[in-house]
C-alpha cells in the first residue's frame, strides 16, 4: 500500500506543471502577465486584450491542455467559432448596430479617405513578402494596418491561423496606441495652415438615407468583393437593425449580450492559440514591427490623400481627418479632433473625422476581401 501511495504521489508530481513545463511555457506566462498588465493598468483595448492575454496564460500552463489546439478541451470548442469564421461577423453585427453612418452619408467623399488609409495594408504586404513571409502570412500581417480587430482575426483565421495570437495582439495593441502613433505622422505631413482649416457644417441626414445606406453597401460590396460579404453583410445587417427603428430589442441584444458573449469566446480562444511554439518565433517580432509600419503607412496614406482633397477643394478639407481613415473607431477620429484643436482651438473636426473613420471599417473589409480572394 505504501508503494502504491508513493506511486500515486509520484504520478501527480510528474503530471504537474512544474516538472513538465519548459522555459517557453514560463516565458509565455510572463508575456501573458505583461499583456494583462497593459490591458488593466494601461487600458490597452481591455475588452479584447484582457480575454486574449488570459487565454494565452491558460494555453501556456504546462500539461493543462487548454490551448486552442487541445482537442476535446474547453477552449478547443470555443475556438471552433473562430475557425469556422463565425465570431468576427457576429461582432460586426454588433458594431453595425452601434455605428452611426450619418457623418459618412452627409459627406460621401469621406469614403475616399477611408480607401486611402488602406495603403498601409498593402505596403505592409509587400514588406512582409520581401522579408520572406509566405503570401498568406504577409496578407494576414498586412491586415493589421486596417486597424480593425475582427477583420484582422477573420482574415488571419483563414490565411494563416498559426499567426492568430501575435496578429490579434499586435492589432489591438496598436489600436490602443493610436493616440501615440498617429500625431507625429500627422504633424510631419501637414503644415500648420492646413491643420487650422475649419470645415463646413455637415448637412443633416434623413432617416430614409440611413436605412437605404446599409442595404446598398451590402449589395455593392458583396457584388464586387464577394469574400468581404460575411463581414460587410453582418455589419450592414446590424446597422439596418439600428436604423430601421422597428426591431429595437434585437438591435440591443446584437450590440450588447450577443457581442459580449462572442467577445469573451473570441478573445479567450484567440489568445489560447498563442502557445510557446507558435508565439516564440522570430516571425512574431516581424509581425510586431510590421504592424507598426502598417499603422504608420495607413495614417500617412490617409493624411496625404487628405492633402490632395484639400488641394482639390481649394482648402475646404482639413487633411487631418484623413488619418481617421484607418478605422480604430472612434479613437482615430478623436486624434484628428485633438491635433486639429491644438493648431486652432476653435477647430472641431470630430464629426468630420467620423466619416473617414467609419469608412475605414468598410475599406478594411474590402481590402480583406481582396486578400482572401487572391490568397485564400
Amino acid at each position, binding site marked *: 500500500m505504501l508503494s502504491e501511495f508513493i506511486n500515486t504521489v509520484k504520478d501527480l508530481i510528474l503530471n504537474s506543471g512544474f516538472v513538465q513545463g519548459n522555459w517557453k511555457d514560463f516565458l509565455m506566462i510572463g508575456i501573458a502577465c505583461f499583456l494583462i498588465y497593459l490591458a488593466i493598468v494601461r487600458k490597452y483595448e481591455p475588452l479584447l486584450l484582457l480575454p486574449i492575454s488570459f487565454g494565452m496564460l491558460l494555453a501556456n500552463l504546462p500539461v493543462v491542455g487548454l490551448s486552442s489546439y487541445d482537442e476535446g478541451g474547453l477552449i478547443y470548442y470555443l475556438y471552433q467559432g473562430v475557425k469556422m469564421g463565425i465570431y468576427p461577423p457576429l461582432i460586426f453585427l454588433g458594431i453595425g448596430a*452601434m*455605428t*452611426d453612418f450619418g*457623418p459618412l*452619408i452627409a459627406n*460621401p*467623399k*469621406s*469614403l*475616399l479617405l*477611408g*480607401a*486611402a488609409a*488602406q495603403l498601409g*495594408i*498593402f*505596403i505592409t*504586404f*509587400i514588406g512582409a*513578402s*520581401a522579408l520572406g513571409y509566405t*503570401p498568406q502570412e504577409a*496578407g494576414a500581417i498586412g491586415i493589421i494596418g486596417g486597424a480593425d480587430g475582427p477583420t484582422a482575426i477573420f482574415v488571419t483565421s483563414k490565411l494563416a491561423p498559426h499567426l492568430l495570437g501575435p496578429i490579434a495582439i499586435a492589432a489591438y495593441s496598436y489600436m490602443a496606441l493610436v493616440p501615440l502613433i498617429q500625431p507625429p505622422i500627422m504633424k510631419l505631413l501637414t503644415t500648420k495652415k492646413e491643420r487650422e482649416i475649419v470645415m463646413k*457644417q*455637415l*448637412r*443633416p*441626414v*434623413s*432617416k*430614409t*438615407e440611413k436605412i*437605404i445606406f446599409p442595404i*446598398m*453597401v451590402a449589395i*455593392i*460590396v458583396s457584388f*464586387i*468583393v464577394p469574400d468581404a460579404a460575411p463581414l460587410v453583410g453582418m455589419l450592414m445587417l446590424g446597422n439596418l437593425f439600428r436604423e430601421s*427603428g*422597428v*426591431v*429595437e430589442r434585437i438591435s440591443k441584444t446584437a450590440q450588447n449580450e450577443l457581442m459580449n458573449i462572442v467577445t469573451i469566446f473570441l478573445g479567450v480562444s484567440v489568445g489560447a492559440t498563442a502557445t510557446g511554439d507558435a508565439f516564440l518565433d522570430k516571425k512574431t517580432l516581424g509581425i510586431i514591427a510590421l504592424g507598426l509600419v502598417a499603422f504608420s503607412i495607413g495614417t500617412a496614406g490617409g493624411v496625404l490623400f487628405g492633402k490632395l482633397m484639400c488641394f482639390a477643394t481649394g482648402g475646404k478639407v482639413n487633411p487631418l481627418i484623413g488619418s481617421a481613415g484607418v478605422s480604430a*473607431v472612434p479613437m482615430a477620429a*478623436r486624434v484628428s*479632433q485633438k491635433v486639429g*484643436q491644438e493648431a486652432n482651438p*476653435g477647430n*472641431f473636426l*470630430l*464629426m468630420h473625422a*467620423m466619416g473617414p473613420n467609419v*469608412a475605414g471599417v468598410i*475599406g478594411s473589409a*474590402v*481590402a480583406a476581401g*481582396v*486578400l482572401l480572394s*487572391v*490568397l485564400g
Partner: protein
Amino acid sequence: MELAINLTIVGMVVVFIVLILLSAIISLFSKIASAGKTGGKDKMNTKDNDMPAPQAHKDVVEESTAYIEQKDDSELVAVLTAAVIAAMGGSSESNIHVKSYRRIPQISPVWNSVSRKEQIAAKL
C-alpha cells in the same frame, strides 16, 4: 514579390473603386432625397442646404442627438463638439462650457411604440 506588388496595386484599385462607387451612389441618393422631398416623415430632420438659417444636425455614435440653430459662427459648434467629446469620455482641454443644448423633439414615437408593442406581444 511580383505577386505582392500586383496585389497591392489591384487591392488599392479595388478598394478605391468600391468606395468611389459607394460615394457616388450616396451623393446620388442624397440628391434624389433633397429633390423628391415632399415633407411628411422626414420633414423634421432633412432640411435643404440653401435655407437661410440652416440647421445643424449632430448625430454621434450614440443616441445623444442635438439639434440647434446655427448662427454662422463656430462657437456653438465648438460647444457641441466639446459636449460630444465629453460624452465620449474624453476631457476637453479647453474650458468651454455648453451654452445651449436642446434635444430634438422625438421624431418617431410611433416606431417606439411599435417596438414596445412587439416586446409586449407574446409572439415572434
